[in-house]
């Protein structure tokens, strides 16, 4: 299975490299927009010091962690996000005639390495961690813990993305739904959830659980609140999300009404 995935990924890389200009160009633009987006909050925090007790470096940690998780998800599970395209064109039919699980095939289509996002999120995490460790707020243990948090976060992002895509089996057009469940929810998770009113916090920890991708575990990892058990709880929660979304996916796939003729 893994060999198959690797083979397909290499194939989609080679396809992509047929248009190197687009690749370089896309990377550069993503870098510009992402850096500007974070600099908005950085400028504000450098002026006012902190937001509800969260320092610039702590916010940078949240921001970097969710960005890295999302980037991992989009790299490993590439075209799950673009299921709509396959539903509309009927290309999903093609995949169903092959002896490879549809989800795996989708994950390996059009794989991109998001160089800009990887670099930016890694740099942000590195800087914020080194400052936080240097100031004694947290210890070296935070480094492996962060890797673990990012991994769980990537799986949660994947689960949310997969569940949203699955809705496409009924409603076909999912772009608008994705704006809500993926884009705006992740955007909210870039900042401390404590900023938001209770109801939104609940939504972000249950229905669209991006809160578990970075905010909740980071309470322990960088702020020393709660306790070590929260990491175990996050792992458990992540596994639950993954299982649920996979189950939903299988159900959706069995309800697939091939539309293209």
């Amino acid at each position, binding site marked *: 299975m893994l*060999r*198959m995935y690797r*083979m*397909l990924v290499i*194939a989609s890389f*080679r*396809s*992509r490299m*047929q*248009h190197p200009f687009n690749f370089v160009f896309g990377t550069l633009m993503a870098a510009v927009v992402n850096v500007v987006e974070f600099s908005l909050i950085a400028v504000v925090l450098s002026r006012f010091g902190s937001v509800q007790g969260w320092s610039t470096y702590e916010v940078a940690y949240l921001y970097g962690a969710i960005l890295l998780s999302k980037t991992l998800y989009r790299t490993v599970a590439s075209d799950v996000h673009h299921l709509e395209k396959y539903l509309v*064109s*009927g*290309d999903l*039919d*093609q995949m*169903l*005639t*092959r*002896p*490879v*699980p549809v989800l795996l095939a989708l994950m390996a289509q059009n794989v991109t390495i998001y160089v800009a996002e990887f670099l930016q999120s890694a740099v942000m995490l590195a800087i914020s961690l080194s400052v936080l460790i240097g100031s004694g707020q947290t210890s070296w243990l935070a480094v492996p813990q962060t890797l673990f948090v990012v991994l769980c976060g990537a799986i949660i992002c994947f689960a949310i993305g997969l569940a949203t895509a699955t809705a496409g089996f009924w409603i076909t057009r999912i772009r608008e739904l994705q704006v809500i469940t993926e884009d705006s929810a992740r955007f909210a998770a870039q900042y401390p959830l404590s900023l938001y009113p209770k109801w939104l916090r609940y939504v972000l920890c249950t229905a669209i659980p991006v809160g578990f991708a970075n905010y909740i575990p980071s309470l322990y990892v960088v702020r020393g609140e709660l306790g070590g058990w929260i990491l175990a709880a996050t792992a458990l929660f992540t596994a639950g999300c993954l299982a649920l979304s996979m189950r939903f996916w299988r159900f959706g796939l*069995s309800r*697939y*009404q*091939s539309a293209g*003729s």
Partner: protein
Amino acid sequence: MISVTNISKTFRVPVPVEGRWAAARALFSRARTDKEAVRDISFTIERGEFVGYIGPNGAGKSTTIKMLTGILHPTRGEVRVAGLSPHKHRTDVARRIGAVFGQRSQLWWDLPVRDSYDILAAMYKVPDRDKRERLARLTELLELDEFLLTPVRKLSLGQRMRADLAAALLHAPDVLFLDEPTIGLDVVAKKRIRTFLQALNRDFGVTVLLTTHDMDDIEQLCRRVMVINRGELAYDGSIEALRERIGLPTTVKVTFGGSFSVPDRWEEPFRLAERGDDYVTLECNRSLISTMEVLRAAGAWGDIADVHMEEPDFEDIIHRIY
């Protein structure tokens, strides 16, 4: 090889909402109606058969094919391909079948043709030696060598179809599903594909199920034809018997050089379908009257300047079956 018992497929489609605020109400409307695309179809296809599957657009052709290939699950009834249900054992069945959909390619658009074969071979777990042997044979039969290293996006339609056929056969499937394999091709390319398919079926015993709109495909390739209409199997039998049943419907367009007049009635068994300023369109059944006889009769109406034989209307043929 393929056995289909009483399958039906019902789609649930939303009822269109009309009137004021239609768009808003449609969003919350739960109203669904059942649309039966395929109704209670049964048939068996033996190993080595070459079967044509025809019917008008929207008759349920592709829905049937999709159920046979495991893309759709039948609402009722059972499908067996090589003894397995494509519904419950999708990946196992996928390994035993090949499929070519004329409208879309299964090759990797930006990669050389050969790379697609490498990927597919890995997907279908074809051992290296088998892959080399089969590819060599397919290359020879389909004359692939001229474009084996060309990216798929640069192939002509005919080349792409040949490449796609080879892709579907690389894992030596027992059954081959072909959906409009000659669509959009010129006469030469069509002939090449047909010759190959004939050889494939004759020499390697591959079972083929072919859907097409091209009656020539059916006449030249299939010994057995199934006709589907409005979701039901309207005919299943030999091509000869079908021909007897519907005759040989033919349409002739006759253009006159000068003025012409059409009499009120004539003896010969053909009918006037359309009358224009300088032409008439005539329909006849060649099992009852030869085209020459029709033209002789029309010659009495005026000076014939041009004669054009037209492809018979497909929908029309189907209606004749009843």
